[in-house]
């Protein structure tokens, strides 16, 4: 075993470590985004649809959903992970490791997605809704087949924005042994006084964010016919 002094990189030793960390990060982020994104989309549609003056106005349903989101969202993620540990244990079977991190991340992601979807739909053109209704479209049809396609570009950008948030959460997952770039930076960079490790982890995350944002922009441009 090689003993390394601070601020030294041995690629034969650190390289595979980075690769594993990138893999874990991507696993956490992608699983969370897919699960949280889909469930969050439903939550967002429900939030938007039951808002006052909206298609399925229902103050009770909206009140309950809105309150849940408002309770969960402000909790700092690092606290949230530990706070719902018993639930994680119940659902995942363990409270440490990558999957144990994915569970709280997904819950947080659902809440954030719900809000982003709701906000983007609120910005839809009321006239378009009226036109579709005047043509005989059902309320559900208006919501799913008119409003979502109309707001697709901002929704895509919303998901790109979420990616950053989820990446941020994944870094904190290191605290419960979730692995990934965050944990690598904390244990090998911060705790061993090896700033290079931290900086490289940060650089990789920056590149990831850039790639995803570019992809989001490109997709949004393709769907935005303005």
């Amino acid at each position: 075993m090689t003993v390394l002094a601070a601020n030294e990189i041995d690629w034969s030793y650190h390289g595979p470590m980075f690769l594993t960390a990138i893999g874990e990060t991507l696993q956490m982020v992608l699983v969370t985004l897919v699960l949280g994104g889909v469930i969050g989309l439903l939550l967002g549609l429900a939030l938007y649809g039951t808002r006052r003056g909206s298609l399925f106005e229902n103050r009770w349903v909206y009140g309950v959903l809105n309150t849940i989101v408002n309770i969960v969202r402000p909790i700092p993620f690092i606290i949230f992970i530990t706070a719902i540990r018993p639930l994680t244990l119940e659902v995942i079977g363990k409270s440490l490791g990558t999957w144990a991190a994915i569970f709280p991340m997904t819950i947080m992601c659902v809440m954030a997605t719900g809000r982003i979807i709701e906000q983007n739909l609120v910005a839809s053109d009321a006239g378009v809704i009226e036109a579709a209704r005047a043509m005989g479209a059902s309320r559900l049809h208006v919501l799913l087949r008119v409003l979502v396609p109309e707001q697709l570009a901002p929704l895509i950008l919303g998901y790109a924005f979420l990616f950053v948030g989820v990446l941020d959460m994944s870094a904190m997952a290191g605290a419960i042994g979730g692995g990934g770039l965050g944990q690598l930076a904390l244990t090998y960079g911060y705790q061993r006084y090896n700033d290079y490790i931290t900086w490289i982890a940060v650089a990789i995350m920056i590149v990831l964010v850039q790639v995803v944002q570019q992809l989001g922009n490109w997709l949004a441009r393709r769907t935005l016919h303005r």
Partner: protein
Amino acid sequence: MSVPTPGAAPGTPIITFTDVVKVFGGRRKPGREAGHGARDAADGGGAAQGTTTDLRLDGPGGVRTIGLPATTDAKIAKSGPGGGAGLGLVIPDGPLDVSTSAGGEVRAVDHVTLEIDRGEVFGVVGYSGAGKSTLVRLINALERADSGRIVVDGKDVTALSERGLRSLRSDIGMVFQQFNLFSARTVAANVGYPLRLAGWSRADRRKRVAELLEFVGITDKARRYPAQLSGGQKQRVGIARALATSPSILLADEATSALDPETTRDVLDLLRKVNRELGITIVVITHEMSVVQYVCHRVAVMERGKVVESGPVYSVFADPQQPATQRFIQTALHDRPGPDVVERLRRNHPGRLVVVTLQEEGRSSIDLTEATRGLDVSAHVVFGGLTEVQDRPFGSITLELSGPGTDETFARLARHAAVTDLGTSAAPRSDVRWEQGARA
């Protein structure tokens, strides 16, 4: 009295309003129809002209009432059922002319009884907030009436279920001021959308869309997106989309108000074509009397939720009964000198000023040769305008008559046209119509 249209039986009502009332505000139920809250506000809320509106604040400290100046273009959105401290301000996009009652309620449509005949182009004219947008939305039940009965093509709209409404709506096309096209869909997909809703096959849709685009004259734009089109082209798409399912009624809500005059003319020509060639009944909502003049057979004038005057367009133009109607007609024609114009005319023309107006049943021209033949009189045209309403000559000219033959000339003119005597500079008389207008 509507002008006969090919393929239509004139005189049979297709839309009937019987004592219809629609109230906004006050004890408003949760909105079942989303998507036009802001327009509700513009149509239904806010300050009445020339008065103050009471704004009720339901708060922890009880109910307080404050007065708002009449110029405040703000809709007071009361809190929902059950009260609470909710108070929202929605700023509508124009001046308002609505009636408010003591409880903060707004009667957007106030005991309206109206018949619209099959095959005619019917105009509803009024200022912003007069209730005309609400009135037209009662026809396809985007708004539900609070009382009264609305029968469309034999169906009682006020009694229809949600499912029944959808089939009704597929028989009523609607075009909007802001076009309301789907920005994420191409022109062809926009026009095909109502056909998808109606369950048409892809092949049938494609064929029908091609037909429609040709009818409105934008075949080359099928693959474009709405954002790539001009205003006039967008409205053509809107009209094609509204016609897709071959409706028997077309509702045009300020369809030309966002367009320039030339494009307006093109779109109005298209609406005339829709009415003439397809025999579709069109209800035109507008604040521009020139639109009524150009396309409508009959017209109803709305003011503060009420229909104050209605009839064949020519009759209404020739003999307006209400001050509001007169003001609207003047905005379209400018043929009759207002009090300020008369004032200026008198400075340069001391003789007797008379306004000669073409009549519905009278001659189609004003014969000055005949009126002055053999008389010692001079007749100068000092103001006026002649145009066409319903393809018939219409308008008035103002003459300055002087000399010994003035009285005889006046009498001759009065035989074939309506003549209003404004008197001379020395002995002025005022135009009774403007007097009425000023009083109101």
